[in-house]
């Protein structure tokens, strides 16, 4: 590759993201202190309420990340023919956001199941929110699998972008159908999901946790974005090397 491409590709750490990284670690440490020690136990849920400081911010981040994936996918489809970089910037953004989204959806499911075990007495309830979340998790795992396949990068990115859009449109369909399923046939036999009102210290802890998790997710996304760019650069160089070696061989044989 030319030297300009090289100088454009930074390592994954820059001074700015180093500051962000240190901030993320400090914010997480403070979040642990607040969530595990300083905030009080809940009157009804007891200590289990501390799980919500991870669970609730995680699903918010996950949803935010999937929204970002969809928006970037639209921008990619619009930019791919017009912009000089063929919209690769938006494609990388979509990919890194989806991956971070999947990580935090996984965390949501794990913390939710543990919370459910102590609060409801069971890891899993077939309610609308849980069922939608697990389908969401699998959907975006599929999206990441599609992105990882060996194929022409532009073809793969285009298909992934369309998939991201359809998947996003599908989220409310899945949610409402599962919601109907549980409300039409089960006459309020389970009153799951009725989370008690939270106020005071718990409220502030939850709000702060959301901020801390957002910082961590942002850091992760920026780094993942840069790694995707490095991966693309490596693939391009490998391709260029292959082509030049072929050309040399052809010259030799002729």
């Amino acid at each position, binding site marked *: 590759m030319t030297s300009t491409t090289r100088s454009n590709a930074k390592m994954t750490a820059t001074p700015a993201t180093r500051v962000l990284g240190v901030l993320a670690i400090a914010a997480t440490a403070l979040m642990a202190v607040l969530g595990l020690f300083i905030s009080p136990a809940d009157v009804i849920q007891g200590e289990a309420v501390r799980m919500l400081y991870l669970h609730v911010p995680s699903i918010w981040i996950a949803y935010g990340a999937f929204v970002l994936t969809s928006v970037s996918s639209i921008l990619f489809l619009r930019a791919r023919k017009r912009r000089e970089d063929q919209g690769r910037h938006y494609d990388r953004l979509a990919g890194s956001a989806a991956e971070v989204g999947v990580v935090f959806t996984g965390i949501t499911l794990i913390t939710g199941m543990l919370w459910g075990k102590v609060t409801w007495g069971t890891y899993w309830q077939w309610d609308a929110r849980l069922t939608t979340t697990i389908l969401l998790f699998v959907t975006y795992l599929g999206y990441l699998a599609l992105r990882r396949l060996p194929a022409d990068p532009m*073809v793969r990115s285009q298909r992934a972008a369309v998939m991201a859009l359809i998947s996003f449109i599908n989220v409310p*369909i899945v949610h409402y*159908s*599962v919601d*109907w399923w549980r409300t039409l046939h089960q006459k309020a036999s389970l009153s799951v999901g009725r989370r008690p009102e939270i106020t005071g210290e718990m409220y502030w802890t939850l709000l702060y946790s959301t901020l801390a998790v957002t910082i961590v997710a942002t850091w992760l996304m920026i780094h993942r974005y840069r790694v995707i760019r490095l991966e693309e650069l490596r693939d391009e160089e490998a391709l260029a090397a292959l082509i030049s070696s072929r050309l040399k061989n052809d010259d030799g044989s002729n």
Partner: protein
Amino acid sequence: MEAAYWRTPVLAETLLVARKDLRVEWRAKVALGQVAPLALLILVVLAFALDANSSLLELGAGGLYWVAVLYGGTLLIQRSFDVETDDGNMDAFRMSAIGAPSLFLGKSLALFVQIGLLELVLGSGIALLYNVRVTDWVLLFVAAVAGTVAFSVCGVLWGVMSAGLRVRATLLPLLLVPVLAPILLAGSRAFETALGVRADAGWTWASLMFVIAAIHTAIGLGAFGFLLEEG
């Protein structure tokens, strides 16, 4: 581009593509010769899983039917695109004057016919093996049509997504099942009502499947072009 799209006879092109797919399928006889018997085997295996408990089978017949359709349908979808990519037909389509919307509709129509046939075989199998009684034939028929339309449309959309990729045999089900989940849910519930196992909401579920089919048709008409494009 826009104007040309409206001037071309979409219906004629759609039928042309569908006829081509069905003719290829008729010659190869994979759907009837391999997929339908396999789907029947699934019914037998599901009876093993439920210990051939006749009341359980009767209760679950609606859901088990759609699970078998999912399995057989996925194979048919896979095949519908393997036929194209193996011989480089996709390039031919891109070169031809046939528009992406017609191609999408044509392939959906062909898949609808094939999955419909598969369902006829499966339905007969379930009626005989699981000892079910139909209480509402109209609902059963409408729900089957709604589910099959939704299934075919989603199938074509996701089939082209994984077409030509190296690990598509495993990728397609992974991508497809989360999207088909609401259809399976709605189809199972509607069938349970039609089979007299549940007393409620069968028509609501049937109409939900039409809504899902309509949404995915709209997406397919808009997005199929993007999925066909090469770099």
